[in-house]
């Protein structure tokens, strides 16, 4: 700790805290860079939308995992609920308006999140992981057995999403999809950023660091957990609805264990508890997968496996953690 830093704190601790939450030049550049695919890589726009959607999903998981310390292997449950809500709305009720579909998807997922959060807060550690996993798999099986509603393993057919604001049509190249997904991702990110830099975000970190201490400082931490779980479920649901709307398809896979596990892998890969880790993780994982699978569709996961192992060995705090350490060392 340098001397003038100390005196800055003494002068105004609040200002010191605020300075830690200011937008940095890196962040601004990062978001500008997200526009690049629109101009430079139009052939990759469909991939880019899928990355943006997955990144939003990963953000929602970072809220509960990275900040509140709830390791979940069942978050696809909320993603899938959002996806199915939007899909059913369009294919069964003929309502394909995107924005309202997103919101409804988010609301349904949030409701499910709120209800299950009462179970989640009762358990910890392995039991917690397993309860999230169990609930996720139960939802999957439920969707499978409600074939009349969900289309079962074949998936829902006949989804069509209307133009955004009645104007932007979803094109084959994916310009609209990407712009739409990116905008929603950015909004979701702003919400997450606000949440984690608020006093509520601090309480979440307190829970992650030492749950047992929380009641002793007068904290109704279970209520905090239920709340963040609900917020996170809503965001995951929105991400799911976004996937439905940009692809006009929903299959059971949106609810699968694989999806839950993949998103956690991406999040850890990027680095937990720092929001951007979720985005970077999704980008690296999906782009690497796309490129490697392009080279060899049968063995790409060998290289992904090696990537994951290498990251753990050389960047134990995820890619972003590793990068930020490098940067800090340089200046």
């Amino acid at each position, binding site marked *: 700790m340098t001397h003038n830093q100390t005196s800055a704190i003494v002068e105004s601790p609040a200002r010191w805290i605020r300075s830690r939450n200011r937008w940095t030049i890196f962040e601004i550049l990062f978001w500008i860079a997200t526009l690049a695919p629109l101009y430079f890589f139009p052939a990759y726009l469909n991939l880019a939308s899928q990355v943006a959607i997955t990144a939003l999903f990963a953000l929602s998981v970072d809220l509960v995992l990275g900040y509140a310390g709830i390791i979940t292997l069942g978050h696809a449950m909320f993603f899938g609920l959002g996806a199915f809500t939007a899909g059913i709305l369009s294919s069964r009720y003929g309502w394909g308006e995107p924005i309202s579909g997103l919101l409804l998807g988010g609301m349904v997922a949030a409701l499910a999140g709120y209800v299950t959060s009462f179970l989640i807060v009762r*358990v910890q550690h392995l039991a917690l992981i397993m309860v999230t996993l169990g609930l996720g*798999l*139960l939802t999957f099986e439920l969707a499978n057995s409600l074939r009349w509603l969900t289309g079962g393993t074949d998936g829902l057919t006949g989804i069509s999403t209307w133009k955004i604001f009645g104007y932007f049509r979803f094109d084959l190249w994916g310009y609209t999809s990407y712009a739409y997904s990116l905008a929603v991702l950015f909004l979701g990110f702003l919400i997450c950023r606000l949440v984690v830099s608020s006093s509520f975000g601090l309480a979440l970190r307190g829970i992650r660091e030492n749950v047992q201490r929380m009641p002793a400082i007068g904290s109704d931490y279970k209520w905090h957990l239920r709340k963040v779980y609900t917020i996170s479920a809503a965001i995951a649901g929105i991400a799911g609805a976004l996937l439905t709307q940009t692809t006009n398809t929903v299959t059971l896979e949106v609810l699968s264990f694989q999806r839950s596990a993949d998103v956690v*892998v991406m999040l850890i890969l990027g680095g937990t508890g720092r929001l951007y880790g979720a985005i970077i993780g999704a980008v690296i994982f999906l782009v690497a997968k796309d490129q490697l699978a392009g080279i060899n569709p049968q063995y790409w*996961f060998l290289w992904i*496996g090696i990537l*994951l*192992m290498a990251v753990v060995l050389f960047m134990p705090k995820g890619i972003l953690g590793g990068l930020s350490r490098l940067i800090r060392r340089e200046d």
Partner: protein
Amino acid sequence: MINNIVIVLFDGFAFGMLLFVLSVGLTVTLGLMNFINLAHGAFGMVGGYVTVMLMRQYGVPFLLTLPLAFLGAALVSVVLERIFFRRLYRSGELNQVLFTIGLVFVAAAGATYFFGTGQQPIVLPSWLRGSVELFGIRFGVYRMFLIAVSLAITAVLFFTLERTRFGAKIRASVDNQKVAQALGLNVERIFAITFALGSGLAGLGGALAVEIVGLDPSFGFHFLVYVLIVVSVGGLGSIAGSFLGAALLGIGDVAGKYLVPELGSFLIYLLLVAILLVKPTGLLGKR
């Protein structure tokens, strides 16, 4: 009627024992060592391929391949432990998750490369096949064999891990590596041995399971969910708990499917969630 009850209980118990052999290795690595070893299934796969290849290519008898499956998986794990895992003991559960998932990917690719994507059937010796009739009920011979093996494994592990100083040394090392080491315990060696034991058991479980669940390169992922369920329901670190949990899940699952088949695919998850909500540390777990 009574016959049906007996046979359903027997089948359920046998199914439970299948789950037990698949997961007992994880009870050691995850339960005792606190190492989130999602590559458990990959070690099981090693054991499975050892058995299949020895039987097919060299005509080694099935029973003899079992200890070799144990050794094969244990050997692979010792090498990996020395190079990789030991660095991960302290680095947090998320890194362990990521690393071991990466390892499963690599293992699956390796298996695809060497053995192809197809199923690898084995042909058991005739004395282990078919069923025998006792009191007018037909019991599957292989199922009885599984039950016997599981009881033996449980007994051996229970006495070596829960009743000897070695068990206490493992727990001490896991509790607090720093202090255990400062007291003169060779934590590295303890961990290496324990890890090899856990992986060896995984290999043995894989070899025993091939007959029932088959073997292909996705084996490593396939039963991950099941084994995690058994370990968490049994309670971390308790061999007896795993045994009990597996038996309970097996019987519950088979009996449930028999009585309410519509709930077939929900049962095991319902049991999981219900048990953990009532007893978050599992049936016999302390942590």
